[in-house]
């Protein structure tokens, strides 16, 4: 399973992104691209120390600044569903 395909099928799911700077962004994934640039909605931004908080309606994060992402466990099931849909469509042609 490719990490970028996992991300692509996780739109509308809430996730947590930690940047290389240590700041964390909690929000719902709107979209992402092949560079892992992501667009989040209804975001709570927390400082590295955990003492300052900001609320943002929307934010765009450059992929190269991401350290890691935490997703809900159901994101994996979503990808498996989509993969089986693809195979069902492709298998008919063989």
């Amino acid at each position, binding site marked *: 399973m*490719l*990490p970028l395909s996992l*991300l692509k099928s996780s739109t509308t799911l809430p996730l947590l992104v930690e940047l*290389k700077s240590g700041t964390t962004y909690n929000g719902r994934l709107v979209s992402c691209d092949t560079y892992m640039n992501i667009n989040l909605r209804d975001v709570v931004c927390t400082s590295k120390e955990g003492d300052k908080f900001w609320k943002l309606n929307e934010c765009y994060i450059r992929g190269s600044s991401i*350290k*890691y*992402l*935490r*997703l809900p466990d159901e994101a*994996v099931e979503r990808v498996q569903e989509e993969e089986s849909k693809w195979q069902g469509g492709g298998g008919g042609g063989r």
Partner: protein
Amino acid sequence: MASTLSEWTTKPVTVLTCDGRLITGTLEGYDQLQNLILVHSYESVYSMDSPMEKVELGLFVVRGDNVAVISDCDGDDDDEGGEEDVRAEPIKGIYGNR
């Protein structure tokens, strides 16, 4: 020895990130940039003042830039010997701090 990560998919692995964190989880997927998907993952936090702490993380996607070391573990870390607490200095990040 693994020549590619494909040999370790669906196996438990421990990842050392560039900031000195140890994340253990089942390797669900990866790509050529070493972005990793870890399922049922947890962080092992070591300190000299208290026993090793496990912090549950769940589904974790690590960006390849931040991966320093990936090792297989086959779950051998988990509470062997039972009650012994393990104390250790936390690992430093590659930049010299955590």
